């Protein structure tokens, strides 16, 4: 029972950052993001006995989130179909939503690793932690981030990559 209570605490503490990251991967589609969040926490629950505390719990959960989301995204049909339906069903979207949609589109035009780096940066995850989540050096994250920020800014301002 205490294991379940621990999980409840982990879930409540980490739900928002996981949801935020998942939303980024599925262009802000809440329905799909919720699906992914559930998938992520199922894996968190299953792998919790193997958590050795070598990294922070939040970092460990971010790793599971990134790997799970990207794995689901590779199932092209799964994403494209549901997203098309979701986009068709919302004809009256506000200016702010359009702006976010554009941001999402620009982020999703990036390769998977860069997409992950920028989403984590936008969610204020420290660069050191991003390096541990991705599996590259801190210096590589710093260099890469600089380039991605430029690309993203250009894209959001209607320029090409």
């Amino acid at each position, binding site marked *: 029972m205490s294991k379940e209570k621990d999980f409840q605490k982990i879930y409540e503490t980490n739900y928002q950052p996981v949801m935020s990251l998942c*939303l980024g991967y599925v262009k802000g589609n*809440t329905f799909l993001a919720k699906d992914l969040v559930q998938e992520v926490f199922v894996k968190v629950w299953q792998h919790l006995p193997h*958590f050795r505390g070598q990294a922070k719990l939040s970092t460990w959960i971010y790793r599971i989130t990134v*790997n799970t989301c990207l794995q689901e995204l590779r199932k*092209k049909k799964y994403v494209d179909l549901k997203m098309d339906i979701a986009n068709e069903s919302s004809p009256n979207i506000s200016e702010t939503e359009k702006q976010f949609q554009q941001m999402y589109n620009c982020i999703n035009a990036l*390769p998977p*690793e*860069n997409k992950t780096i920028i989403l984590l940066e*936008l969610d204020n995850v420290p660069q050191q932690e991003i390096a541990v989540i991705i599996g590259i050096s801190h210096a590589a994250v710093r260099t890469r981030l600089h380039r991605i920020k430029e690309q993203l800014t250009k894209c959001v301002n209607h320029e090409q990559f």
Partner: protein
Amino acid sequence: MSNFDIIKQEWATRKTPATSEKEWKDILDKSKNIHKKQQIGQVVLGITALVLILFFIYVSAYKFATVFLGLGIMIGSLLLRIGIEFFAMVKKSYLPVDEDMKMYNGKLIKYYRQRKVTHFIVTPILFGSYIVGFILLLPSFKESLSSGFYTYILISSCFIFMALALLIGTQIKKELSLLRELKRGSLEQNSENQ
């Protein structure tokens, strides 16, 4: 303030859906259901294997050399295929999803590369064996069945084999496309790093 800082500020204003009281319990339930389904799957596979073996004994196939060989090859290749798919599924579920992205992707690529051996060597051999086994059974079918029913079995089997080939082909195509996607992602990053 740079352009990116403005983007980041706007990003922070996004609304993310809140969680409800019972959602964490739903996750535990889902996890238990997955475990239950896996157990059911194992039981079903076990029963399938048992039924096939019992059927083999029941028809006393060992009394007729050709029937014994044909049925044995068919059942053997079917059981082998089921076993290979089952162990591949188990192996995939044990991939460490809590490792860093690079390491996990590397392991996924390795997993799908190994699956190519199954797809391009093992599966065609087993599929071919299955058909050979069936062909070996045809003379005894012809002997013991009416010509109408024999023709029906012959034609319907062709359709079944085609449907099976199509099903396996689709599955293989899906996995190969996943592998391509994984490799492309890792190539893009490698070229970025250079």
